[in-house]
């Protein structure tokens, strides 16, 4: 009986796997740290997965970043519906490896849930002259508000809004396929929201994010991300984030991203740099 069920489940999974969307390899991008389709730290205009206007894809991802003083991880899932709408859910956790013991809270971590939605407004990543343009929202709810509230954060939940333009350039530059994203994000978040929302210095800002990269062949891409950040908490000033990444996309069901991230000063601890790893599965 048990065996029969296992076989049935495997059969279902296999049939789902076979029916993954038909867009070209890499066009679903990867899941960024808040669960949206994008690159490491930037939300893109892309819709997750490989679905066309008659197809729907499901993507799941796990991301890990270690800066010695902090360990960050994210587990997320998203649905890309007909290359038009994306809905995502992500759970983030930041382990306070160094700060925890200092605060007398060994083992403490900051947690946040993010529910995201994105709609493609116009354009096509690959085929239109104009870039693909999407509008997204991310509802963020801090799940460990004690430390953020002591640090001066005003709210434990808030909404991010972003407008993003992404374009793939076939054969440019130098015959490679280049890609670029520019995103404007309206946010009240302190360190993504892991330190809550708003503070003594202000609340909502419009910040710019950008990614630039190149497909070196069908399955390998390199690039860099930039994410502007501003401070609401005088206790915990923020720096802009940046990373350089390598992505491996061997097929439509699997991708792997490795990046070197520079987060600057995070919650009073300077020079937070480290390796970022992310694995994505799509069906």
């Amino acid at each position, binding site marked *: 009986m048990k065996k029969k069920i296992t076989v049935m489940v495997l059969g279902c999974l296999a049939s789902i796997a076979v029916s993954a969307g038909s867009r*070209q390899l890499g066009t679903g991008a990867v899941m960024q740290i808040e669960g949206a389709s994008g690159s490491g730290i930037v939300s893109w205009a892309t819709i997750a997965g490989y679905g*066309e*206007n*008659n197809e729907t894809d499901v993507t799941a991802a796990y991301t890990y970043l270690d800066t010695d003083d902090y360990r960050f991880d994210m587990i997320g899932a998203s649905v890309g519906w007909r290359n038009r709408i994306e809905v995502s859910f992500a759970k983030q956790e930041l382990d306070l490896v160094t700060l925890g013991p200092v605060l007398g809270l060994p083992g403490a971590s900051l947690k946040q849930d993010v529910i995201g939605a994105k709609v493609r407004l116009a354009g096509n990543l690959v*085929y239109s002259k104009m870039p693909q343009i999407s509008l997204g929202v991310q509802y963020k709810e801090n799940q460990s508000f004690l430390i953020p509230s002591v640090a001066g954060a005003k709210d434990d939940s808030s909404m991010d809004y972003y407008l993003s333009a992404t374009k793939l350039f076939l*054969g440019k530059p130098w*015959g490679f396929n280049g890609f670029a994203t520019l995103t404007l994000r309206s946010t009240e978040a302190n360190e993504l929201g892991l330190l809550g929302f708003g503070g003594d210095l202000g609340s909502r800002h419009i910040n710019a994010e950008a990614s630039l990269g190149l497909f070196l062949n069908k399955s390998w891409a390199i690039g860099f991300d930039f994410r502007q950040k501003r401070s609401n908490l005088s206790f915990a000033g923020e720096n802009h984030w940046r990373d350089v990444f390598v992505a491996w996309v061997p097929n439509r069901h699997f991708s792997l991203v490795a990046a070197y991230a520079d987060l600057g000063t995070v919650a009073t601890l300077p020079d937070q740099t480290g390796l970022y790893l992310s694995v994505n599965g799509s069906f």
Partner: protein
Amino acid sequence: MIKMNKQTMVFLILTLVTVTAHSEDSLYQQLGGKPAIEKITKHLLDRLLNNEKINFLFKETERDDLHIKIVDQICMETGGPCKYEGLDMVEAHSGMNIKYSEFDIFVEDFILAMEDAEIPFRLQNKVLAIFAPMREDVSYE
């Protein structure tokens, strides 16, 4: 400071222009001319006509006729000495209700056919860039 007279300047500029012009061979030449395009087209048709997801779209066309038309079109669009004499892309595909997902499968087979014909990645992309805008003429939303 190196001092240049007017004549030297003109000479240098002319040389630069000539060199640039020569390094800009047409895409047709870079691909390897007609033989390479014949090869790509053969592999493309092998794949398309055996691909159960889209081969029904070609059931009313003769392979030989399709072969000639595709070769002529790739040749002409990449700057070669050919003239495509078939219907334009809108006319040729009207009433077929080709889906974007089917167009994608065609593009994938086209890429694989260029790989079969050993066309380098960077040339593949330049060819795709020429044909990509035809998506809206061929398929519908």
